């Protein structure tokens, strides 16, 4: 076989691989659409926000399909976690890069990497056994929106810190040298030169963290209490979209099952929105 024949076969195979992996996302969306079609057709989009409650087991006629409390819960938990984790994560990255003595900074970097690698189910276990009782001793019942926010904060802080750190690494060295030549103090260098220059990277870090918070299932499921309701305080139990899928998928049939695939679609839409925002603002790949 000549060179060009084998080469053509090789490139063809590689193209097939890339086509398969490249279209996987489309397949996922397609299957979600196909599986959720019965609910979309028989229940209709409007009832997912206008029904009075979430009681899907009665079928399309007698069931109630309001997803809104869970969308609110997901949004609140994510927003709360971002509120706490953004300063913590960026602060950690700033510490590791500009404030810590050399050895300590590297040690701290290792800790962040380890934290990022701990499985979510372990955070959930810890939250359930340690954190929720702690919250309960202050404001019962303990498994609540607050517990979910705290566990999510612990989970996304390392994500934000790692991406922020990578951004700091990629800044041109000349910025730091120029700041040093001007005799700027440490905070003037960080606050006046580094943070503004790293702005789009930091934004990406926050978006990546929020993506992780929206998609997190197990840890939230274990500490949030899982009552379907729109919370009026931090101490009420809530159920997020992801937790709802994990809890009900085991026994869901017919329209109920289709409704769960619908909430999968809602999750995908939220992630697509984040990627879109990142494209517009940073012109970069947020999951790259």
């Amino acid at each position, binding site marked *: 076989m000549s*060179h060009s024949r084998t*080469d053509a*076969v090789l490139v063809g195979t*590689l*193209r097939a*691989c*890339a086509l398969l*992996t*490249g279209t*996987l*996302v*489309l397949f*996922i969306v397609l*299957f979600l659409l196909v*599986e959720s079609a019965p609910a979309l057709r028989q229940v209709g989009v409007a009832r997912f926000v206008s029904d009075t409650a979430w009681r899907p087991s009665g079928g399309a006629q007698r069931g109630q399909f309001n997803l809104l409390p869970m969308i609110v819960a997901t949004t609140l938990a994510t927003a709360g976690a971002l509120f706490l984790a953004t*300063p913590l994560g960026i*602060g*950690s990255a700033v*510490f590791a890069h*500009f*404030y810590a003595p050399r050895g300590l900074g590297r040690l*701290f970097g290792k*800790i*962040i*990497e380890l*934290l*990022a*690698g*701990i*499985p*979510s*189910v*372990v955070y*959930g*276990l*810890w939250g359930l*056994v340690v954190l929720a009782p702690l919250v309960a001793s202050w404001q019962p019942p303990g498994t609540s929106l607050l517990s979910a926010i705290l566990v999510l904060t612990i989970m996304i802080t*390392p*994500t934000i810190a790692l*991406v922020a750190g*990578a951004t700091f690494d990629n800044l041109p060295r000349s910025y730091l040298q120029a700041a040093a030549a001007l005799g700027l103090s440490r*905070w003037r260098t960080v*606050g006046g030169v580094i943070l503004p220059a790293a702005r789009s990277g930091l934004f990406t870090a926050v978006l*990546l963290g929020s993506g992780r918070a*929206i*998609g997190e*299932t*197990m840890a939230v499921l*274990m500490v949030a209490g899982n009552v379907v309701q729109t919370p009026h305080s931090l101490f009420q139990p809530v159920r997020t979209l*992801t937790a709802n899928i*994990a809890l009900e*998928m*085991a026994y869901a049939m017919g329209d109920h099952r289709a409704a769960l695939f619908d909430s999968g679609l809602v*999750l995908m839409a939220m*992630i*697509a929105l984040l990627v879109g925002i990142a494209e517009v603002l940073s012109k970069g*790949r*947020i*999951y*790259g």
Partner: protein
Amino acid sequence: MVKEKAVKSQAVQFKTSEKRSIWSHLPEIIATCAAWSAALVVTGVFVWILADVVRHGIGAISWTFLTAAPRNAGREGGIGPIIVSTILILAVCMAVSVPLGVGTAVLLSEYTSPASRFGRFVRRSLDVLAGVPSIVFGLFGNAVFCIYLGLGFSILSGGLTLSCMVLPILIRATEEGFRSVPNDYRMSAAALGMSRTSTLLQLLLPAAVPGVIVGLVLGIGRALAETAALIFTSGYVDRMPGSLADSGRSLSVHIFDLSMNVAGGDRHAYASALVLIMILVATNAIASWTANRWLGKRILTA
């Protein structure tokens, strides 16, 4: 006259700076405190969680725990079959995702210009894939592998679902590996008249192996940590699996089940968590060692 003025203004400047010294240092002090306290909080939480897992888990771990079958819903006995199921799920996942991932990475880094439409399309969709929540992968796997392809709740379904999930990680690290191969290699091969196939197999692939290894280890880490995507694909059964078509419970699902559904299962949940963390730390250490040694680069684990 001029000289006198200069000296005077210098003195004035000096004076004002001395006067403002406390106030001008205030932001400096606040920033330093903020950075240190952020680091302290993060480290504190890390130590708290780790100490908790080790303290509760270390007592239950023994050779019998690692090899015996669970009894009484996991409150007694061990995690032997669960470790076997976990390894089988991982093996299926890697057997599917490594060829696909390496193939895609080679195409993206060697045979497609970054500006081409196809390359951009594949990259962008991989970016989105990396952000898809794991529970959505679970829904997809359940619909496609368990029901549509008729595999049922099985190790095969679980492994295939995970392979979709780890592809973006694998591809990114492998691409990095190919990128670190010097361009001279490609030029020399072309000058010698080597075919593209043999250039790839004899020259580029061996040189890019470290990147592939890093990707592999990161993928293993992600797959081991996953719970949500496995509950509805590989199932809950905690018996020793007889074949890949059997349902098998992974270590992370075991931890979840023990802590949520089994009263009094916390001790063994902690012990299983400790085992899982130790496996993950070991794989991560291998990844960063490989990356530092051969690639001279840091690759994000997030």
